[in-house]
Each structure stands twice: as C-alpha cells, then as structure tokens.
C-alpha cells in the first residue's frame, strides 16, 4: 500500500518539481568531446640501440613508429634506420607513412608509401600491409611493397615477448624479406633476401616508457642477394651484440 502511494507521490512530485525545469530547459544535444571519436597518439621506439658486430662494425639502429588518430583511422609514421658509425653513412633508412584501419578483431590494414633514402640509390614504394596480434600472442606486421619501377617484395615481422617476470621481458623478433623480382642496384636478388633475428632482454625501468635492454642480433642474406653482397665486398652473415632501450612516449 505504501508503495502505491509512493508512486503517486513521486509522480506528483515530479509534476510539480520538474515540469518547469523541463519546459524551461531544452534537451540539448551532446556536442562535447565524449560524443566525438576519441583521438589519441603515441610514439614508440621498439629498438633504439647500438650494435657491435663480429667484424667490429658499429651501428646505431632504430625502429620506431608514431601514430595519431581514432579507433577507425590512424595515420602512422614508421621509421627504421641503420647508421654506420665509422663510415658515417646510413646502411638503411626507411620511412613509411601509412593510413591504418581495423579489418578484424585483432588486425589492421595499412596502406601508404615508403621512402628509402640510405647511402646509395633511393627507392619509393607503395605499401600494403596488415598488422596485429596473432593467436598465441605473436605480434605480426606483414607488408607488400611495390617500387616505382614495379619491383615487388614482401616483408614479415614477428615478435614474441616472454615474461620472465612482470618487469624482465625476453623479446624474440624475426624479420624476413622476400623479393619477387631482382633489383640489382640495391643488392636485392629474387627469392628470400634476408632475415634478421633478435633476442633482447629488457627491464621496464620507468613504467613501459623506458626499458633498457641487451641482446643479440643475427643478420643474414640469402641466394642472389648474398652473392650480390659478396660481390660488393660486404658480408652475408653478421652477429651483433646490442645494447639499447625500448621507449614509449
């Protein structure tokens, strides 16, 4: 009984207490930031390191990306470089600018351009790729490149992080490049071109923003690409000791 009366009372209350408010106050439409897609950004240097090879070669190496955008569309700048310290020259210098959209629960598609401007001939490619998280926690980044001259190649990047503890992390990386046509000028032969495998032990010193690491990296060239390298007086297989830091801003 008391409940029924409460309802009457409440609605009556509402009618006298609120009605003026409703008429006085229009129901506004939400134009606040909350109603807009959330825009976010990030900068990550996955690798920022000094490499010392078994041939006493010294390299400064980075592998970084920066993004800006929403869940639906991001612009991403990816940059990779290997700087020969003694010769003061870039062995590799790749910059990519891509747009990125989600295509499945765990994967994004990317499309854009890549500019290679190392010591020696430059190259420009169109890029089409997918990136995301594969089952069993493998981070995958697979790309197809088509150069201005029509040379095509593909690159697969995979990374797995093993948590020794919640701060000590062992990261295994594999980077493999396959060319579907030869580009002799830059030492690329048809077939499997090269692989780079790495093992890095890091410690999260400041959040996940600064994580120093040490590790080993093995670079190898295959088939015609290896022959080209030899002919040019370069090496086909290198071991590096690396020291550096993973940085996220």
């Amino acid at each position, binding site marked *: 009984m*008391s*409940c*029924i*009366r*409460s*309802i009457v*009372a*409440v*609605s*009556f*209350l*509402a*009618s*006298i*207490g*609120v*009605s*003026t*408010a*409703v*008429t*006085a*106050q229009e*129901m*506004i*439409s*939400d*134009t*606040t*930031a*909350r*109603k*807009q*897609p*959330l825009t*976010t*950004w*990030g900068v*990550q240097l996955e690798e920022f390191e000094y490499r010392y090879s078994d041939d006493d070669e010294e390299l400064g190496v980075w592998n970084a990306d920066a993004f800006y955008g929403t*869940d639906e569309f991001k612009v991403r700048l990816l940059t990779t470089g290997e700087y020969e310290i003694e010769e003061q020259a870039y062995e590799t210098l790749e910059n990519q600018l891509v747009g990125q959209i*989600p295509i499945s*629960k*765990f994967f994004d598609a990317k499309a854009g351009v890549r500019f290679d401007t190392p010591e020696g001939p430059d190259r420009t490619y169109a890029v089409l790729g997918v990136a995301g*998280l594969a*089952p*069993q*926690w493998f981070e995958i980044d697979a790309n197809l490149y088509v150069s201005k001259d029509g040379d095509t190649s593909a690159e697969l990047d995979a990374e797995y992080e*093993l*948590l*020794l*503890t*919640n*701060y000590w992390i062992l990261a295994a990386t594999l980077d493999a490049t396959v060319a579907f046509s030869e580009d002799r000028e830059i030492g690329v032969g048809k077939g499997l071109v090269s692989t780079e495998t790495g093992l890095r032990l890091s410690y999260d010193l400041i*959040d*996940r923003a600064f994580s120093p690491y040490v590790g080993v990296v093995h670079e190898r060239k295959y088939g015609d690409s290896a022959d080209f390298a030899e002919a040019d007086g370069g090496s086909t297989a290198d071991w590096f000791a690396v020291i550096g830091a993973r940085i*996220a801003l």
Partner: protein
Amino acid sequence: MNSRLGSVLLSLLMSASVMAGEYNLTVDRVEIDTGDFVKDGIGYNGASPGPVMRFKEGENVKINVTNNLDEMTSIHWHGLILPFDQDGVPGISFPGIKPGETFTYEFPIQQAGTYWFHSHSGFQEPDGAYGSIVIEPEGREPFRYDREYVVQLTDKHPHSGDRIMRNLKMMPDYYNREQQTVGEFFSDVSKNGLMNTVRDRMAWGDMRMMKADVEDLQGFTGLINGKGPDQNWTGLFEPGERIRLRFINSSAMTYFDIRIPGLDMTVVQADGNNVQPVSVDEFRIGVAETYDVIVRPKGEQAYTIFAESMGRSGYARATLAPEEGMEALVPQLREPARLTMADMGGMSGMDHGDMDMNSSEGMSGMDHSSMEGMDHANMSNMDHSNMKGMDHSGTSGMDHGSMAMGKEGPSDPFYAKGSGLVPTAANGGKFLSYADLKAQDPLYEDREPTREIELRLTGNMERYTWSINGVKYEDADPIRLKYGERVRFKFVNETMMTHPMHLHGMWSILDVGADQWNPIKHTVSVQPGTTVYMETEVDAPGQWAFHCHLSYHAAAGMFRKVIVEGGPESTQAKTDVIAKDGGEV
C-alpha cells in the same frame, strides 16, 4: 516512508516555509599527497577529496559552484533524484560550467543516505574532483549508531587521467603488472601437470585474452578520505559505541574488498537506500557504489580498515582507534585473482569439470567462428543457469551463511559458475553477495515490467574499445523510454571485465530474486560472463546519462544517453489549458 514523502510534498507545496540551504563549492587546482607521491590534481574548496556535503531530506538546496580552472567543469550529484537539468552531465543535462563562471544548482532533496558527487567532465574525477554527500533523513532510521564517519575510497594514480587513457589506447596492458610469467607457468605445471598447463596457456593464447586481465589500472595508491596507507586516516571511537561507516568507492577503476579484522560489519544501506541488515565479514564495493555498515568495537584497541583491490594490486588502509596514533596489524595482500574460462561467458558450457581441459582442437574451432556469434549462442545458456542460481539463493540457501566454499570452490549467483573472481572472506566467514541485499522499505510497488531492453556489454581489450551492443557512444542513438513505464534492463556481459553500470536520474531496482524486496541501487555491477537484470520505474522526464562507471571504459564508449519521453511536460501543457479555460487544477 509515507511521512517522509508526505512531508517532502508538503514542503514543496508550501515553498515559503521550505527549508533552504545555500552552499558554495569552488573547483580548484590542488596538490594531492598520497604519502607515496605528490601530484597536481583537481579538488573542491581547495582540497581533494572535496568536503562532505550535509543535506537534510526535504530541504531545497542551492549550490553555487565556481569554476577556478582554465577548462570547463561540472558536478554530477551521484545517486540523487533531481530535475535532469541539475544532474550535471555536460552535453546531456547542461552545457557545463565555463572557466571563471559560477553555476547555481537548485533542487529539492527527496531522499536520505550516503551519496557522492564528482565532476563529469573529461578525467577530472580520476584527477581528484570528488566529494561525499550525507543526507539526514526526516524520519527515524531503522538502526542506531553513536558516531558516523564517511569512508571514501579512491585509486589515486601518479599519472593524469588523460595520460592513462592514452597509454591504455597505445598498450592495453600498459599498467598490468600481474601478468602470467614463466615462473607461474612452472608453478602451474607442478600443480596441474605439464600438458594441462600447456593446454590452458594455448587456450587463452588462442583467444588472445589474459587470465590476468582483472584490473586495467594498476600502480595506484589506495586512499581513504584522501589519505594513503602510510598516512593512515583514523576514526576515533569509545569502546562499545556503534559506529556507522559510510563507505563510498570514488575510484576511477578499482573495486575494493573491504574488511575490518576483528569486527563484524552489519550492512544497513546500499547506494543510499536502507537494506535489511546483513552481517558480514567482508564485502566488495564496486566503483561508484556506497555501502553503509555498522560496527561495534568493544575493545580498547585499534582496528584496521583494510580495502584490497579486487585484482590484489594495491590497497587502501585506515584505522578505527580509541586514541589518535594507535594502529593495528595491516594484513598482507592476497594472491592476485585469475580469470577462468567461466568468465569468458561463451566458454562456460564447456567449463564443467576440469575447466581448462578442452581439447585445443575445440578451442581453435571456437576461435574461427566469429567471437560475436559464439558469445551470443553461449550467453543464452549462461543466462538460464544464472537465473536459476539467482532464484535459488532468493528462496532458500542464502541465509545459511552460505555461498560457502564447496568442493567446486566458492560460488555467488552474481558471478559466472567457476569464475575466478568470486570473492571469499579472508577469515573464511561471510562475504556479502548482491543476493543478500533486500530492500528495507521498497520505494515502488512491485509490478510487471512493461518491456525488456537488452544491453550487451561489449568490448575489445586489445584495442581498448568499450561499447554497448557493440556500438560506442559516439555512434549510438539514445535509448528512448516512456514516462510511466517500468523497464527491465538485461545486462549481458560479453567482456572479461566487471562493469559497474550507472543510470542517472532514476533508481535501478536490482533483481536478486526477492521481488518486492529487490534492493534499490544507482550502480549495478555486472561480472564477466553473467547476465544481470534490473528494473527502472521511468519517473523522471528529460535526458540522462547511462554508462559504465569505470572512467576509461566510459570514455572509450561504454556510455549511452537515455531520453525519457512524455510525462509531466504534457501534464503541464494540459493543466495550462485547463487553467486558461478556468478549470480547476
């Protein structure tokens, strides 16, 4: 109750004689010192948390809020029943309060109990913009106490809200330091055997979900009334006194399990509404919930109020003592919780017996089928078993101090069967369940709902997107309700996280299977892999916010606008006509 409402009515009708209190709040940049770190934040009247606002039921309050920030702000009066344009949600109730401006809130206080207030702009609330509300009832309360304290909890993080959101978007596990490690793999191997452990890891790896995904935000310092564990907020008492503790969880993201070793707690109120007293050893307080408990310390000794986070990554601590400076033992944190396949909802059917031991074939089969379809199909099963569980506890069982640890581990009808999140009391005693909450004095007649609205709580942890029915707020149409209807909301949690759902402006009558005694709340926690029902008497016209109260989930899109159509506006129009025609109003 009758006299309570009657007198509100009376006071409104005779506005001349009405009590009216005027209050002032300033919104300020403040410094917050947790004992572990000092950071800049936002507070009220120069401090975070802000003051305890003490109102009287039946009073008309006028609150002048001056914005001393260089950005927009707002204050939402969490749990208060008021006209929608006084509810303080920018873009829904009003445009917000500009820098330098003073906005005056004016509304009648039509209820009593423990509530709180906070900014509804950006991440000002996690940054410190919150305070408490205590409303003294007009009539007598059905319990006695000699002394009362507000015990307001939060999870103060060294990072700003904006930074936390960005980090979570960049790396969803940025703050998770309870992930499974190589060490845990080997300890699981010795417990469950190598093959079982490998299969378990493979099953979770296939879903790309983490058993450790209980708390998105770790690395915080738990505060009670603004004091960190080392600063030890202390409430004094005389032995033998009854103390009413008004627990408020003002955290951005953190659920707390609260106990006071050595003391029984009698829960007398939840979300501001009196409940039939239930004596517990420990209870879990969801984000934005309030619980009032009465304790009666008899000894000339100190007692620790210990609030462990649900994921056991942090804690808040305070002390009740006969004299300042006395301390009691501070317990150790228990082991971090781990989700089970039951918390995945979709998996629960396969979950009985040895939960993790599905063949990996079966698992990958599931993975190929779209997640959505999978969840859906299995959810309906879930739902049935869950309801049965709920009804069961409603009718029998629950009074036997049950929810006991059986062979299958602890259970609670509001958690998925076999869930890794089911709480247990540290002393082996009684842990409060939603199923224990019974309204002391129902506000509404118990009637059949006019319709049901299903809200699937959805998200993608890897992208840190959160949504309702798979749609983020930015893309969503409002939920339209009709004044006078009673809507039954069906929450289906398809994510692996707990979501405290908060409907503004109208009460959430949580279905615990107790019919007219179902408790009346403003925030309802929905555990992973479960379906929870609540009913709402649609008695407040206007437009209202309805969202997950985890700050970063709401900001990521688990948010809706509710529009209540019709109601007194038309009544008003009609009376106008009658008045014009000279009719009797």
